[in-house]
């Protein structure tokens, strides 16, 4: 077992455990804490996979932006009381079993296929290749992404400033 694999397994276990805790928490604020754990652990996984740029973006955007946004929304909405989970037993079992079966099936397929097609060039992907691909081959999607962000900005402002749904302002 190489050092990289050990570090990868550590971050993977951390990500899985804290992702389960995100779903299981009753209090939304604690969920946000575990979401921050999950996001940072996934950034560690990205670093192990030699996607350093992706890891840095993950820490900046998720760890710095989205988690703080969640905290603000919970504080503004003042969600102190837990929302009761009223659901009958049979639908609950059903909707948990469906993703569990999906995971088991695909995990079986993944692990039964010939193992250890080793990933990870030891030299690492150079950042220049990523930048060049982003600026040449994927220039059009890149610009469309900026248009999407502009549309989201305008849409979020318009939705959030209306007092009610019947208000046309």
């Amino acid at each position, binding site marked *: 077992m190489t050092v990289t694999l050990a570090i990868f397994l550590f971050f993977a276990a951390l990500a899985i455990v804290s992702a389960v805790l995100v779903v299981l928490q009753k209090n939304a604020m604690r969920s946000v804490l575990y979401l921050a754990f999950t996001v940072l652990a996934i950034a560690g996984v990205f670093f192990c996979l030699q996607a350093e740029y992706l890891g840095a973006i993950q820490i900046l955007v998720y760890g710095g932006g989205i988690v703080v946004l969640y905290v603000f929304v919970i504080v503004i909405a003042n969600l102190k009381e837990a929302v009761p989970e009223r659901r009958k037993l049979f639908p609950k079992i059903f909707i948990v079993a469906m993703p569990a079966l999906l995971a088991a099936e695909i*995990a079986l397929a993944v692990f039964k296929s010939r193992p250890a097609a080793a990933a990870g060039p*030891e030299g690492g992907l150079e950042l220049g290749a990523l930048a060049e691909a982003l600026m040449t081959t994927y220039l059009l999607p890149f610009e469309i992404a900026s248009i999407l962000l502009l549309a989201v900005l305008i849409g*979020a402002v318009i939705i959030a400033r209306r007092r009610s749904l019947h208000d046309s302002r």
Partner: protein
Amino acid sequence: MIPVNLVLGLGLLIFSIGLVGVLVRKNLIIMLMSLELLLNGVNIILAGLGCHFKSPRGSVFALFVIVMAVSEAAVGFALVLSYFRQKQRADADELNELKG
């Protein structure tokens, strides 16, 4: 050297946990967090495959997925705040006005 099977399994597991969260929880904000988990699982798979095929494309697609996740979070928060302002609750049970 990380086997690509492990990376795919990890991404799929995170995706499934997020799917359970979206389907089971009733709290709108925790549902949005589970959506982030779903997209993060997809990102792990994309980064792992990019590493496996020694191509920058995985990182490029994962970058676009992150952009989309941020947009979805912003619009989702706007909708949750607007809904909360009307109903004073953050419970998906009350969202039944389009049921007919």
